[in-house]
């Protein structure tokens, strides 16, 4: 599948590029821009990033495969992330994790058949004092109870 950056995103890339003395350094923000546009990072997207920045494709690949927030497959419209690290776990995060898994009917890193939801068990999100927590796409939901989780998931359609 052909991938080309939109004019608007090319302008954003130009802005980002100014922050760094080398074009390689702009690769992380540019991958984010590409993920915004395309939803995930495919091989074609990596080729395009490499040619826009004038770097080798392998540099893009190495970054995309190292960092967990870049996705190489299409995730759901709502990417639900449940933190199960120690502070959350002490306050019942695994109950929340099981609840979300059962409710959505998918396992870790799976996407629901209609593409609405995807699920990820994440490491500490920096919300330890407000545990347990889940994040949906970019938004944090903290101090959760089972009822609140039910409510949040029901509101996502």
């Amino acid at each position, binding site marked *: 599948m052909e991938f080309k950056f939109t004019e608007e995103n090319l302008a954003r890339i130009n802005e980002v590029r100014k*922050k*760094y*003395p*080398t074009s*390689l*350094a*702009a*690769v*992380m*923000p540019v*991958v*984010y821009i590409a993920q915004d546009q395309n939803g995930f990072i495919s091989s074609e997207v990596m080729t395009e990033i490499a040619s826009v920045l004038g*770097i080798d494709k392998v*540099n893009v690949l*190495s*970054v995309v495969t*190292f*960092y*967990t*927030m*870049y996705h190489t497959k299409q995730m759901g419209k709502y990417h639900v992330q449940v933190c*199960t*690290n*120690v*502070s959350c*776990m*002490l*306050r019942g995060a695994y109950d929340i994790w099981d609840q979300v898994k059962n409710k959505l009917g998918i396992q870790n890193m799976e996407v629901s058949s209609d593409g609405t939801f995807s699920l990820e068990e*994440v*490491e*500490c*999100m*920096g*919300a*330890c*004092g*407000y*545990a347990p927590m889940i*994040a949906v796409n*970019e*938004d*944090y939901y903290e101090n959760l109870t089972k009822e609140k989780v039910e409510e949040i998931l029901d509101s996502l359609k």
Partner: protein
Amino acid sequence: MERIVLPEIQSLDQIEVYLANGGFDAAKKAFAQTPDSLIDQVKKSGLRGRGGAAFSAGLKWSFMPKTTDLPKYLCINGDESEPGSFKDRQIFEYNPFQLIEGAIITCYAIGAKTAYLYIRGEYHMWIKLMQKAVDTAYEKGFLGGKMKEVFGTEFFCNLYIHKGAGAYICGEESSLMNSIEGYRGYPRIKPPFPAQKGLWGCPTTINNVETITNIPPIISKGWEWFSKIGAPKHPGTILYGLSGHVNKPGVYELPTGILLTDLIYNVAGGVPGNKKIKCVIPGGSSMPPLRGDQLEGVRMDADSLKEVGSAIGTAGVMVMDEDTNLLDVLIRIAKFYHHESCGQCTPCREGTGWMEKTLKRIKNGLGTSKDLDLLCDVANHIEGNTICALGDAAAWPVKFMITRFRDEFEKYVNSDVVISVPNKVHAMRNTAVPLSDLKK
């Protein structure tokens, strides 16, 4: 008690409010002095890094070469991925301009023209808040070329936010720099230290967000004032993050050197249901845990915690009550480090996996007390044998949890378990033999 990093002032994230409360006065004062005098003041104030190692901030600055043709850089570490630590986000949200002011003073002191603020990728909302503050600062001339007019000096600097993408290891200083340069977050071998070869091989200073935010008050109120707060050898206030089994979890700014029991029982409202405490991790998940019966008289500063066999780390205090299953906690911690090991050094890459698997074997009822010794042995072989401190961070919780709670872990292992031993007749085969038979 006066709060330094998060003062009790409403809407301090608005530039007007910040300016009305003496904002950027410290920067004006700083630009009237020589960089060397600033470094000297920070050194004398006794400010120690808030990112985990508690290294003297002024001393770190003084390592920057004075004469060099290369550009110098400042990195500000807001990666904050340590489980139990959630303090920097409070600064991004409630006091972003003090961080920016601290950054420009630091840039002036070390002679840097560019600062990168690295914030973890999951903090979308806080990155937006911080970006808004940075944009405002540019607009008002507190950053960038307009600084010359506003402050009337020749000096100016730029501050850029770099968004991480979900790697714990990028909180390590050299991998953070690799990450900014556009590489995988692999730690670099030291020496050379960042002050000699940092970002793009140029001299770089890297400090934690909280450390930088402490700078403006030190300059405006003087180092004598700062050095008298809290513990003499580790002065100032710390953002304590309390989580786990406490009634009022959250971030509290208090002087260093306060009693850990005070922190848990008075500040955070004690343990729910008045239960006893089984275990406390005082500085984020990678620091050695303390037993519940060890807590009396323990003070929260770098030296006191070192004496009792732990460390201040990022001051993320995790409290576990008497009903906590420590095996589950340790499995979760081991899983975390296994997931986050970057894979460069064999002891860490393999060892973290072995520790997780061995702990899971114990969880499945197939562990023997020899496995506990094995875990300590693996941990000892990781510690100190890796490029960066993630190896130590993975080894300490396992080693110290098991040695300090051996009685607890002995309950989970089975002394009569069947284990496989090499068959003496057929060297290539293994035979299952009950452990009790082996002892005979």
